[in-house]
């Protein structure tokens, strides 16, 4: 009986020691992680950078049938205000007839159907597209054309004829109100 008691004590001591070891190691690991985080986070973009990454653009002054170009994250962003004719021409195009099928609703934000926001780079050869100004070469669909490879886009930024095969990319953006959009 005495022997069994001693044995039980030893087992308990070992369990207690293991527990203390694990507790110490776990506390140390948490401490190291807590210390490492400020160093890792220091390489993340600071508040200034993030503010630039969320650019607010005033779209109230854009005249119908024209587009403005702004830079955001090193990319040219074209923001275009459509005319009623351009909306009517493109609203009921059957998507399956297009090289890169997309609905009208896919290309605009609900409630702000007259504004098209795209990255103004040709999806074939990367060139800045022409067509922001009504006097530019806009092609047969009154949208944009590429001066480098001759690709043609409609006012919604959908590719109509190649060599490009993809529609213009739409950046992440939200309407803050009727006249302001936030990019990013």
């Amino acid at each position: 009986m005495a022997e069994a008691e001693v044995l039980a004590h030893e087992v308990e001591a070992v369990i207690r020691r293991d527990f203390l070891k694990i507790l110490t190691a776990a506390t140390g690991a948490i401490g190291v992680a807590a210390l490492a985080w400020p160093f890792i986070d220091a390489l993340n973009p600071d508040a200034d950078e993030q503010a630039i990454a969320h650019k607010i653009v005033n779209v109230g002054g854009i005249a119908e049938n024209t587009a403005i170009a702004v830079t955001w994250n090193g990319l040219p962003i074209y923001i275009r205000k459509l005319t009623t004719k351009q909306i009517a021409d493109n609203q009921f195009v059957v998507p399956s007839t297009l090289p890169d099928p997309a609905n009208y609703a896919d290309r605009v934000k609900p409630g702000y159907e007259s504004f098209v926001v795209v990255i103004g780079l040709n999806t074939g050869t990367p060139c800045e597209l022409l067509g922001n100004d009504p006097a530019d070469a806009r092609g047969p669909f009154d949208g944009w054309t590429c001066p480098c490879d001759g690709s043609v886009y409609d006012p919604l930024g959908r590719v109509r004829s190649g060599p490009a095969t993809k529609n213009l990319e739409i950046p992440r953006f939200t309407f803050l109100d009727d006249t302001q959009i936030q990019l990013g």
Partner: protein
Amino acid sequence: MSTNITKTWARTRLPFLVTLRGYFLAPVLAPDAPYLGTLPTLITAALVFMTVSGFVLGIYYNPAHGFASLQFIDRTVNNGWLIHAFHKTGTTMIFGAVYLSLFRAMYTRAYRGVADFVWVLGVVQFILLLLVGYLGYLMANGAVSFWSLSGVTQEAQTFSGLPGAISNWFFGGPAGPGTLARLAVFHTVLALAIFGIVALHNAASRAAAPAPAPGSKAVSFYPYYAAQYFVAFVIFALIFAVLVFFAPHLGENQLNLGPANPLVVPAVTTPPWYLLPITDVSHAFPGAWGGVIGVLGRLAVLLALPWLDRSKPTAHGGGVYRFLVIVLALDVVLLGLVAAAGPSLVTSILAVLLTLYYFLHFLVLTPLVTALEAK
């Protein structure tokens, strides 16, 4: 089973790792090593920490706008204020440990016999740390450090021949953005070079350590000394944390928190505390060469110490010598306080007297007392 496979895998491919493991975990040591014996390890740990924080600071530091980029780090970079404070306070922690280590080695006369090379490597490490610390201080490009750099580069111009050519080569002419750019590189490269000295110092002190006396209860490093080092590390880290959060500008000239201005010399031009004992603010020796001798001479006699002590390596006792070491420590502290007080008639006289005593200790008292002791 799986651990065995891992062990064999490492053993056959990187036998060096097994040696390293044995080097750090297996040695059998005397059972009564003091806590202060952990200081070199703590210094090394702090140096690693300085490398990590220096890496982050180096990403954002811009030598063309030294002061402004540090302001940017403090105000805009995520946690930049914290990492900058870590780097500054790390300097204080390292020099605190280094000065304590130097005093301990002198007091216990740990530089005698085959340990003379350990001492030399330790002093070389100290000199490199002073240089790296000074370069880091110049990189801040504050009101005070700008004038320190400007003074040093101007003095470099006054030397003719090789010394002038070397200083000009090092600083690249008068203080300017180009100078800060090269000092930033020197700061980084020399700081990393210290790790090489650390490794040599460690290997040399292992070789010089006396084997445990036969019959004594020698203990293995792991787990016994690992526990001691862990406790020492926690105490070190605790002091570090308290200083970082409650005294991030400790031992620093507050005027250096303003930007450099080439038209205004600040009222007080003292460097950070760790440079004070070797600062020749009051010009104890006249002339440009006097300044060089005042700084380099203080370090040179330190290097020569193992050969100035004439006692036998194994001799015990030496109460008089120990007393003199304590007096020397006070002398060094006073030298620092005099340098901090800035130039005036009283401090100039004191600086000369204290500097003379410093050299007297090494060049006269040490050989004399230890030679008498040997008789």
